[in-house]
């Protein structure tokens, strides 16, 4: 690991003033310290955010909105009773990710900013346009069974690995950021970027800007009764998603008044399926409808390598998540993540 300077500012203003090119914000460190160990990232200076007060609140409001501070730990958010009741699929997604230990350390801001798990990105001896722009992409023609099937480019075929980000995309979250020019809000759909010709830029955050919080808009809790996050992976727990889906329905009687659907681990950003959502609105739930919605959600998907199986898996997980969402959020949430034994998990 390259040597670095360390500072622990006591306010957002102090943190922003401490930033200079080559600095990195330190949240829980579960992604950053790991990548510093391999040498994939080599910051000159770590600015530890943990000493900043006021970024650890979770507020759920009566209008179905919520505000979450950037330093809230992943486990605290998932287990906050009011939050988990209003946004069960967000809690389910957080708890489907990483492990109990990692979730205790990981912050909301760090989770949204976590880097891809592409193995060539992690390994400094491999060509990687995301790590070293212009160096090439070792994953193209390499080991790429888990890489993107949507939105990829010839310069990068990596996926965004976050589970948490998938239901946030579906619910239209907004990221609050602060920089030396003040605060601004970034809609979730614009927060993570597709690679195009500049895969080194993961997000819409400008250098020196900081995530201070996250907002779920009014009405987001209206989906609470019919929402699920499902994740497929190589083992039952403690593995990144091969594909995942967040599905939420606002039911009026037997009719879907409004639908939300996003896919995870298929692209460099959580993939909100607007076309599928439009097709579901006003309809009654049925297997045929959910199959059509899943087709629409994966429209335009193409393998970026040895990964065409992911397209079929994504279709099936989308249809399954919609089916389970229609059946209703289970009484005991979070349900066991993707367990073969848990009640309802594979109903």
């Amino acid at each position, binding site marked *: 690991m390259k040597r670095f300077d360390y500072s622990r500012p006591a306010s957002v203003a102090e943190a922003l003033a401490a930033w200079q090119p080559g600095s990195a914000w330190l949240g829980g460190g579960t992604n950053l310290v790991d990548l510093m160990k391999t040498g994939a990232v080599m910051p000159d200076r770590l600015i530890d955010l943990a000493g900043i007060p006021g970024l650890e609140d979770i507020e759920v409001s009566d209008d179905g909105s919520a505000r979450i501070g950037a330093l809230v730990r992943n486990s605290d958010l998932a287990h906050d009773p009011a939050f988990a009741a209003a946004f069960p699929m967000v809690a389910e997604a957080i708890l489907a990710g990483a492990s109990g230990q990692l979730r205790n350390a990981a912050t909301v801001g760090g989770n949204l900013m976590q880097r891809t798990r592409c193995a060539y990105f992690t390994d400094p001896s491999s060509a990687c346009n995301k790590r070293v722009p212009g160096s090439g992409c070792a994953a193209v023609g390499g080991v790429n069974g888990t890489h993107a099937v949507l939105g990829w480019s010839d310069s990068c075929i990596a996926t965004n690995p976050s589970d948490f980000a998938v239901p946030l995309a579906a619910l239209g979250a907004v990221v609050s950021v602060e920089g030396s020019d003040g605060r601004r809000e970034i809609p979730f759909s614009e927060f993570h970027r597709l690679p195009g010709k500049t895969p080194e830029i993961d997000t819409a955050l400008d250098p020196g800007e900081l995530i201070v919080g996250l907002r779920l808009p009014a009405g987001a809790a209206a989906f609470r009764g019919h929402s699920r996050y499902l994740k497929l992976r190589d083992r039952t727990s403690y593995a990144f998603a091969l594909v995942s889906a967040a599905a939420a329905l606002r039911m009026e009687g037997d009719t879907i008044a409004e639908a939300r659907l996003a896919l995870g681990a298929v692209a460099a950003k959580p993939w909100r399926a607007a076309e599928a959502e439009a097709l579901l609105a006003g309809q009654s739930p049925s297997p045929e409808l959910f199959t059509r919605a899943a087709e629409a959600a994966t429209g335009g998907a193409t393998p970026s390598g040895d990964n065409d199986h992911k397209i079929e898996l994504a279709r099936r997980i989308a249809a399954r998540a919609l089916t389970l969402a229609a059946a209703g959020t289970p009484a005991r949430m979070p349900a066991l993540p993707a*367990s073969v034994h848990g009640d309802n998990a594979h109903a």
Partner: protein
Amino acid sequence: MSLSISLTVNGDRCDVDLDDPRVTLLDLLRERMALPGTKKGCDRGQCGACTVLVNGRRINSCLTLAVTLNGAEVTTIEGLAAGEDLHPVQTAFIEHDGFQCGYCTPGQIMSAVGLIAEGQAGDDAERIREGMSGNLCRCSAYHGITEAVQDAARRMASADERKSA
């Protein structure tokens, strides 16, 4: 750059001068505090062998920079027993054969203590397996581990009830 921190490890207050901010909590414990009970498996957050409690919560000490822990309270496997009296989770691991080689065991035990304190799994075997999935066991002693955590969770719950009665 020299960084001084002060933290409590297993109840003892320690002042530490860090000549290098790269030191992880795991290396601090093992290499500089003569507490080798906490194990290094992967050093990348992937195995759980390095699990300790920080301020009562389980975390991976291999991904935690020591310099971030000024004022923290750390508990390692060495600090769990009260003198000769083993912690109920330690007793249960022995009674249920929750190990073979023992390398993952300190991490398993610390993780189980953290899991039970979180109060989400109770004595439900499947929720315990899920809650313990951040701890790998190369000897695959998972059956005994699950039974041990179930048993310890039950015993600690009934001890709590007796206390509050």
